[in-house]
């Protein structure tokens, strides 16, 4: 696949932000450690180098999700194209893990659409980003998983 242009428009179409009461290293690990990923997302995720592909393998709960890796810099930043298996990846997703004050870590997901989304998708499916961050937050802060609600 040809890597899409990593220069994203200034204004994302959707932003999800969740704050974790944990050091940045622990928050990075919850999104990259295979065991944590299996708990949180119900499937194994493989992320290639910049220019390569990434995939979240299908599980009994989730379809496979795949796309291209656009950027991994600076540390804690991951920019991907995003799409389900049946469709070519049409959208960009920026995933940022940054330190906030007082030992808190901020996780931001910005979605940039390459086309107009129908209103029900924008209002429904995209809200899932914050919900997706709820499970990892519970796991990091309490040590106990919050089962995926979907």
């Amino acid at each position: 696949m040809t890597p899409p242009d990593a220069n994203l428009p200034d204004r994302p179409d959707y932003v999800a932000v969740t704050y974790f009461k944990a050091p940045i290293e622990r928050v990075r690990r919850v999104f990259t450690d295979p065991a944590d990923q299996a708990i949180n997302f119900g499937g194994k995720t493989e992320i290639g180098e910049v220019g390569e592909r990434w995939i979240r393998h299908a599980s009994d709960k989730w379809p496979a999700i795949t796309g291209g890796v656009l950027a991994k810099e600076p540390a804690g930043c991951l920019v991907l194209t995003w799409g389900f298996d049946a469709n070519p990846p049409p959208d960009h997703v920026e995933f940022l893990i940054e330190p906030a004050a007082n030992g808190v870590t901020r996780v931001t997901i910005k979605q940039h659409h390459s086309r107009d989304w129908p209103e029900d998708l924008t209002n429904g499916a995209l809200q899932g980003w914050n919900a997706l961050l709820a499970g990892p937050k519970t796991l990091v802060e309490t040590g106990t998983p919050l089962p995926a609600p979907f």
Partner: protein
Amino acid sequence: MSASRFVYVIHIATTPEKLWDALTRPEFTRRYWCETWQESDWTPGSDWRAMTPDGRVADSGKVIQADKPRKLVLTWENQFIPDLKVEGHSTLTYEIEQMPSSVKLTLTHEMDRPKSKLIDAVSQGWPSLISSLKSLLETGQPLAETTKWPEGM
């Protein structure tokens, strides 16, 4: 659909009753909502006010719907930032649903005005407040950054 709209969905390991109390009762909101607290009897038609720790009214409005512990709808007018106050009433809706293994909170803050500054401002504030609320309910401790009213505000 409103012209300006902020939506936040989160799942919390708690009960609908505890979440309702955490959103409405002063002893909870003071801990995670920058020391603020709300005055209301939480019945439809009643007044609702959010107070700063030094006793000023931060925001106010009416209770539109109160279906404890499932749904609470308020009108919301900012009272301490002139640029936001001039925009008038917004609407805040909390919807609480029991899921198989957690409680789902859907917060919708909207206004029938394109590019509302108020909705833009609350969009910056809600993620840390709701993150802190979840931490308080699940761990007993809020996030440090939402425990104090900002100095000079």
